[in-house]
């Protein structure tokens, strides 16, 4: 038993069809529970008022936006090194989700920033690096779309993902140098004392779990679609040959 067994599309389809309903159901439960808990059952914060509630969408979306890129990096590496097609398709499937997560983080941030900072947009390092991340997602997806041959597309986007990761990280620190920010420090961290009180912490945790499960469900669904699409194309080609 090794993880590479799932590189086999048949095995992947079989396992993912078992996992998918569970992931979807749990994601829905966590999201509905977490959001209702967060929106209606927590008190307003002292210095933020009710705007604090945006945190339940903003923080998980921002976390996912970054982590999805990391996941794409890993799957691209697996594709480039071990040539497992499922891996490349998973990277392709994850990209639009990551882009939407980035967009959600940016938009909810703007909605929060308007009453709090008095501006929809500020060229703050965190905001700026998210915008740059958004551009990287766009370029990555555009490259997938532009190339017809699926293996070529997988290779080239894989290389782009590697180079892009380095430059996204570099941009992150470059903008830090370029402008001092308004955005507060990390809300959640493992080593320092927690910045937010438990009242907000638990529903937030639930929302984060919900977003992760939601992403897992979506990626499985989209990867399955891509695999089926690939099979369909193979069948059509065989039909034409016959």
């Amino acid at each position, binding site marked *: 038993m090794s993880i590479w067994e799932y590189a086999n599309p048949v095995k992947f389809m079989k396992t993912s069809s078992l996992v998918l309903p569970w992931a979807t159901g749990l994601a829905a439960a966590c999201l509905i529970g977490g959001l209702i808990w967060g929106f209606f059952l927590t008190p307003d914060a002292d210095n933020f008022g009710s705007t604090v509630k945006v945190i339940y969408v903003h923080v998980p979306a921002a976390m996912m936006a970054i982590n999805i890129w990391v996941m794409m990096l890993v799957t691209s590496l697996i594709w480039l090194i071990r040539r497992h097609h499922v891996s490349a398709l998973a990277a392709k499937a994850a990209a639009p989700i990551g882009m939407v997560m980035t967009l959600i983080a940016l938009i909810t941030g703007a909605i929060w920033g308007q009453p709090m900072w008095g501006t929809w947009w500020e060229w703050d390092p965190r905001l700026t690096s998210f915008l740059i991340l958004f*551009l990287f997602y766009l*370029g990555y997806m*555009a490259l997938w779309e532009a190339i017809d041959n699926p293996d070529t597309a997988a290779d080239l986007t894989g290389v782009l993902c590697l180079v892009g990761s380095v430059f996204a990280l570099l941009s992150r620190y470059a903008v830090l140098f370029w402008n001092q920010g308004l955005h507060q420090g990390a809300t959640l961290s493992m080593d320092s004392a927690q910045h937010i009180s438990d009242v907000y912490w638990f529903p937030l945790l639930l929302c984060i779990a919900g977003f992760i499960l939601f992403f897992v469900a979506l990626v499985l669904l989209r990867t399955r679609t891509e695999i089926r699409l690939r099979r369909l194309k193979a069948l059509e080609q065989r039909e034409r040959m016959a």
Partner: protein
Amino acid sequence: MIALLLRDLRLAVRAGGGFGLGLAFFLIVVTLVPFGVGPEGGVLARIASGVLWLGALLACLLSLDRIFALDYEDGTLDLLVTAPIPLEGAVSMKAAAHWITTGLPLVLAAPVFGVLLHLPAPAYLWLVVSLLLGTPALSVLGTFGAALTVGLKRGGLLLSLLVLPLYVPTLIFGAELVRRGAAGMEVRVPLLMLAGITAATIALVPFASAAAIRVNLRQA
């Protein structure tokens, strides 16, 4: 490799168009900016360093799709891949040729265009230094973008979408270097960062470009 460099340079000069075009584009951008923001000297002087860097970046972008397109069409690229010199070296030479035909003229012309934008006097030195250090990175990264899109029919727009985010760190440190130089502030940090990014880019990115070209030629 020197022969390859000379060949590319000769092609760029004799085939016409490529050599002066980037420079002309740069001039047009610099001319259009005062129409957009108004002719007051104070405003122009403040934004001059950023505009000059942006103009140089866009002019560089304009000529990227020519790096490999012609060689791809007439089969020269296939010969380069099978040639005894490593493809990474050939790609580096391509980038060098692109820099000499596009980047270097921009560096030399930038102080002249700086006059048009009322660039403050102490900034001239730093403008030339920052462009001299930064434009090679733009050419090398552009070569990577061109290598990714070489097999595509209409790769031009996609090329800009792929390459521009990669230009962000170079642009930030380059423009910051000029801004700090103009204000008479400490310039060591952006100077070192810019030089570091360019050096690392020249050293590492050709490997990615060569990999992309191999992939693109595999299917054809």
